């Protein structure tokens, strides 16, 4: 066993990379759930985003175009969910599960000819001078742009929900859609926009895995991150900063346990592999003990009768 092989600077830098897909998907789902919609299709939207982004960036040679395509792909798939739940008034849980299964199948079909190809690399944002600072430089200033977008998105969603009128209306729709409707707000429109935002975020998170973190395409490569994102939103009590904390905690322990495995520590691999899930949930459960409930209309179907 050789713990000195673990470089703390590299560890922190790579935990941020490991956490970003989860953060992106979870922050999108947070907005969706704040609007009162439970979309269990995060995993499906992520994997469709992963293959859409991968395919477009391979064809065009531009990783940026790929990321945009991933967001569009995720949002398009989420529109299917929006149609089912907001217009056809289908059950949200069943529609979300169907969306995940559909997304997994669709992505496998779309990705048949992309297995084993290497996508164009995404340039890191090596800012001269400050990225050369020892320790802080590699941790904070030499990542790809998407990682910063993830953090900015988290801050943006927090500020939007807390300070803006749009955020207030969104929270109101999630709290009581009947009251929001009576006051003249368009519940369906707010919810569709939220669902599409969630889809775009999930798609971006998926593409982050296939273009940056792993850079390759394999079937089912999101490997349950979408489900973790769903759990993270709940355990973070629908608070953006707690989502960020939970995502980094999960990413950090994940990277750490991989390093420990490589260092040959005398703990069975199975325990190490389950540790990120256990510890993240444990910490967030303790933190969510305060009184902060779910949006009151979460998962309820809205129909403007009379």
């Amino acid at each position, binding site marked *: 066993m050789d713990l000195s092989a673990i470089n703390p600077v590299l560890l922190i830098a790579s935990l941020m990379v490991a956490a970003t897909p989860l953060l992106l998907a979870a922050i999108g789902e947070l907005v969706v759930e704040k609007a009162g919609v439970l979309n269990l299709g995060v995993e499906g939207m992520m994997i469709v985003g992963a293959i859409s982004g991968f395919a477009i960036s391979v064809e065009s040679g531009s990783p940026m175009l790929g990321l945009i395509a991933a967001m569009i792909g995720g949002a398009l798939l989420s529109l299917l969910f929006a149609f089912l739940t907001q217009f056809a008034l289908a059950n949200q849980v069943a529609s979300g599960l169907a969306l995940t299964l559909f997304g997994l199948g669709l992505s496998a079909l779309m990705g048949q000819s992309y297995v084993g190809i290497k996508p164009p690399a995404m340039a890191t944002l090596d800012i001269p001078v400050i990225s050369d600072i020892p320790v802080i430089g590699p941790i904070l200033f030499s990542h790809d742009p998407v990682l910063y977008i993830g953090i900015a998105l988290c801050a943006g969603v927090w500020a939007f929900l807390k300070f803006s009128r749009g955020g207030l209306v969104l929270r109101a729709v999630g709290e009581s859609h009947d009251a929001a409707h*009576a006051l003249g707000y368009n519940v369906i429109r707010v919810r569709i926009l939220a669902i599409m935002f969630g889809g775009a975020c999930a798609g971006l998170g998926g593409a982050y895995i296939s273009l940056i973190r792993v850079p390759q395409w394999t079937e089912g490569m999101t490997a349950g991150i979408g489900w973790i994102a769903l759990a993270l939103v709940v355990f973070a009590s629908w608070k953006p900063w707690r989502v960020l904390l939970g995502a980094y905690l999960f990413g950090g322990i994940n990277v750490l346990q991989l390093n420990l495995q490589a260092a040959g520590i005398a703990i069975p691999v199975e325990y190490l592999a389950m540790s990120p899930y256990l510890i993240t949930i444990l910490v967030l459960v303790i933190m969510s003990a305060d009184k902060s409930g779910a*949006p009151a209309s979460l998962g309820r179907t809205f129909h403007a009768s009379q």
Partner: protein
Amino acid sequence: MMSDTGPLLSISGLTKAYPGVVANDTVSFDIGQSEVHALLGENGAGKSTLVKMIYGLVKPDSGTMTWKGQPFTPAEPKAARAAGVAMVFQHFSLFDALNVAENVALGMEDPPPMRDLARKIRQVSETYGLPLDPNRTVGDLSAGERQRVEIIRCLLQDPKLLIMDEPTSVLTPQEVEILFETLNKLKAEGTSILYISHKLEEIRTLCDHATILRLGKNVGECVPAETSARDMAEMMVGDTLQTPTRSTEKAGDVVLDVSGLSLEPANPFGTTLKNIHFTVRGGEILGLGGVAGNGQDELLAALSGETPTWPDAIKVKGSEVGNLGPSARRRLGILAAPEERLGHAAAPDMSLTENALLTGAIREELTSNGFVNWSGTTSFAENIIKSFDVRTPGTHVAARALSGGNLQKFVIGREVLQRPEVLIVNQPTWGVDAAAAAAIRQSLLDLAAGGAAIVVISQDLDELMEISDRFGALNEGRLSDIRPAAGLTIDEIGLMMGGAHGMEAAHIGAEGTPA
């Protein structure tokens, strides 16, 4: 200018039909400048649909509205608000998890920044004698305070016409008085008010003019101050009213004995029951009043067995039942009918037969060895329908398909026909038309005459005074002293209900305005 002398809002020939029912049929009337206009009618008379059309939530099929002489066709509430229409809803349009200022901001077109808004809320609430802290979470407020939030939300928009849909149903008599002072002050400032209610005495004191709707049609107009409440009631119902009669039986032994009942609520916005004591004798009706949300639902849950408590907190004929579940209590003859018809008292999508089975299985012995006796259940359901005059095509109909009054008759009848020894009902005639309400009250009186102990929890004080032998009030989870119902004055009842919920300060602030 014509707009200064003519009516503020003139409605002519408004019609709105829904599949199977005409909610409004060529309704016409005028609302004058600074007039308090009452809209009277029973449940289902079309009052709510009519105001929704004025507020832009529903589009009329035909007919026209004129606002200050100009055609008025609000496509959405935004347009109506822009014209100067504001509305206080019957079922509050508030968001429990948001604070007062956020709730107010949601009802405004372009609200100022939060800090200015909080200051404005304080200012308006002081001017009109409605004290309110903008930073409190709405879920923690009492019903009266919640209504203040709605009223202030309207006042901040400087409305020309304020629509109030059944505003006093959740208030204590003292709070009603303060509300009326506020409304009179608004009227003196030139605001018109459309006041919807079926409480006739209130309308007689407050309103200048009344329009009466029945089954969607305008059936008459009157000046409330010059018309008796009975005449108005008969215009609403279109029939002569029968008042329930009671036989004067002597009360028997104590049947239900509740002592030291304390209970934490099941949901975070519920009320904690605090040390409740009362007894009910056989043949007696105990009426429990109080503003909604003061522990009524929790008390019913504790008495019916939905929420088990300590064994000795509730005794029936001397035996401890506090820790028993609903089925065990039903076996002992303790039955209950909760407030919410759809979802609590009845399963909406199940047939009347199935709903009859749900509470009747034990007392009526409708199951054996785990199998359902469907023919017995059907005849039990038929019996309920026949005895209580439930208007329905048959027992196969889903509970959801019945009108509120019919389903309420079914729900009450289902319990009454099981020969209860103790019956607890919450809001037995809520949202039920006058004729059905009289029938339900009569059945409760008859049941008591047969020796059952009955607890009626209700927010309708007139109903409680009409049928109960003794009266108590719930206030923040505490029960007042129980007093004989005969001879209680409205003032005394109001004080038992907790007075004006801390609104005395407001009372002083509102002095000097014409009341």
